[in-house]
């Protein structure tokens, strides 16, 4: 087992740092249904961490716990070395955790640019009176953040749809815009909930490339949920496997692949 402060080196030679986020004995119940049962794992700085499992395993619930949308009944969430008190989702976002959604949750009535600019909220300091006046501070702030946003727009290659209303975009581009909005927050931890769901092979390849580039270029720590095993095994450094709310495996893709519990969960167990 790794120490919480020391890192490790991945197969492809990237250096992974200490623990960014640690989940300790998380249990989440909805009435009588136990969605997550006593799960612990950590996410380290700079790594790509995947959470996988069959349908209904509690992966999305886990992500919702991390992003503050659900408050677990038991267990602790540690972020950057301190225990996180129960907080509202927007406070979690202010701490530097950004996410995308399984079903795209963009602001349909706004342009791509406005959507991505909304991701920069953490960097907006002017008050409403300054904004009402516009000239001066508000305008300077708008321009400064616009420059940062344009870098991300360039990075994700969505320059041509900058001013297009999001409602007019095809599915694959919407997913990319959502990633742009999350990246605009310059997150310390980026959560991706099924970033490749419903995509064809080319779109998946594009998205995989963007995820790797984001990790490479900005050093962003990424936690993702994905069903496409090929993608998961290729992208991620370490994988958590869940089944029926329990953790049944944790380790590098190779370790997980040879884990008997994981194989049983995915293929079923013969009862003869």
């Amino acid at each position, binding site marked *: 087992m790794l120490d919480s402060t020391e890192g490790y080196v991945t197969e492809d030679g990237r250096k992974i740092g200490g623990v960014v986020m640690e989940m300790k004995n998380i249990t989440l119940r909805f009435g009588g249904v136990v969605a997550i049962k006593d799960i612990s794992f950590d996410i380290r700085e700079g790594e790509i961490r995947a959470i996988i499992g069959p349908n209904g395993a509690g992966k999305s619930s886990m992500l919702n716990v991390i*992003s*503050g*949308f659900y408050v677990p009944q038991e267990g602790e969430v540690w972020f950057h070395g301190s225990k996180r008190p129960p907080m*509202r*989702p*927007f406070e*979690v*976002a*202010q701490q530097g955790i*950004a*996410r995308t*959604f399984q079903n795209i*949750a*963009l*602001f*349909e*009535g*706004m342009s791509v640019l*406005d959507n991505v*600019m*909304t*991701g920069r*909220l*953490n960097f*907006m300091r*002017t008050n*409403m009176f300054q*904004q*009402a*006046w*516009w000239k001066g501070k*508000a*305008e300077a*702030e*708008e*321009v400064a953040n*616009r*420059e940062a946003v344009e870098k991300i727009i360039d990075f994700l290659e969505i320059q041509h749809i900058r001013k297009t209303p999001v409602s007019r975009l095809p599915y694959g581009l919407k997913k990319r815009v959502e990633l742009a*909005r*999350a990246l605009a*927050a310059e997150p310390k931890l980026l959560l991706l909930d099924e970033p490749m769901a419903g995509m064809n092979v080319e779109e998946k390849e594009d998205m995989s490339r963007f995820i790797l580039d984001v990790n490479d270029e900005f050093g962003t720590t990424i936690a993702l949920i994905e069903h496409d095993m090929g993608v998961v095994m290729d992208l991620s450094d370490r994988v958590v496997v869940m089944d029926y709310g329990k953790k049944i495996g944790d380790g590098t893709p190779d370790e997980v692949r040879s884990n008997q519990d994981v194989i049983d969960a995915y293929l079923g167990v013969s009862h003869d």
Partner: protein
Amino acid sequence: MFYREAGDFKTSYVDDNQTFPIKFDRYRYYVVLAVAFGIIPFLINDYWANALLLPFLIYAIAAIGLNILVGYCGQVSLGTGGFMAVGAYACYKLMTAFPDVSMFIHVILAGGITAIVGVLFGLPSLRIKGFYLAVATLAAQFFLVWLFNRVPWFYNYSASGQINAPERDVFGIIITGPNAPAWATYLFCLIFLTICAIIARNLTRGTTGRTWMAIRDMDIAAEIIGVNPLKAKLTAFAVSSFFVGIAGALFFAVYLGAVEVGEVFGIQKSFLVLFMIIIGGLGSIFGSFAGAAFLVLLPVVLKVTGVDLLGWPTDIVAHLQLVIVGALIITFLILEPHGLAQLWRVAKEKLRLWPFPH
């Protein structure tokens, strides 16, 4: 052919962020401002001021206010009439308590007071939304009207229960009361409308506007990416009520001069302003202008054509107006939920490519 952005290149984000990015629009805006400030005041008479211009200017302010709340922030409100009443009564109390202070300050303070009241009645929006919030604001509407009827302090214990605007001036020019010249009242309202529209535009194109629209489009996602829903909704209520309060103060002090609250600021007024933004276009400043102009003009046009030209009875024409407005609301809600502003936008898109279809 002349309306296109080809060749109109932007080389800075400041240029790209301006209110009218297309040169033609910008020049048209300057022309409209020049005509409104420089030409109309010299041509105006009492009929034009009272039948068309003053109601248009004042309703446009109210419509911008309501549009911020409903169109930009997605919080349905049926309390506009009540909030206009707050503005009117606040202005009245200020005018009678401090006769020497400029009307400008009174109207702005009246807007501020309305903003506070608006925030109070906006508190339920943190818990409820949509239809249920509409009912909560409806309660505000009835409660406020009841309050101004029943508590004599608000109407200074006058025997009739009405409030009457005393004669007040700005820099020596009489603005309120029967002796106010038409050009002065017109300019006074126009200045407020211009400032309100600019403020609304600045807020909606910046951070505040984006948080409002984020809440409108998907409140859960908005919260998860860092929008504080409490702050976003309450600022929308505050700004919206500020504008609506200014509209109410002007409606009472400058336009009508005397007000009986139940009659003038009843539920009818709430619906009228709501219809304006539905017809004009939700989530559009231009739409607020278009809707206000349309619903102010419609009765006048109908009266001129129906009663004066065709000789129909007055009551038929009055009812016809209700029928037309009702039909239009349904048509717009089904066919073009974004109203006249969207029709205008589509027309511009077509015009850019004209005479080619694609």
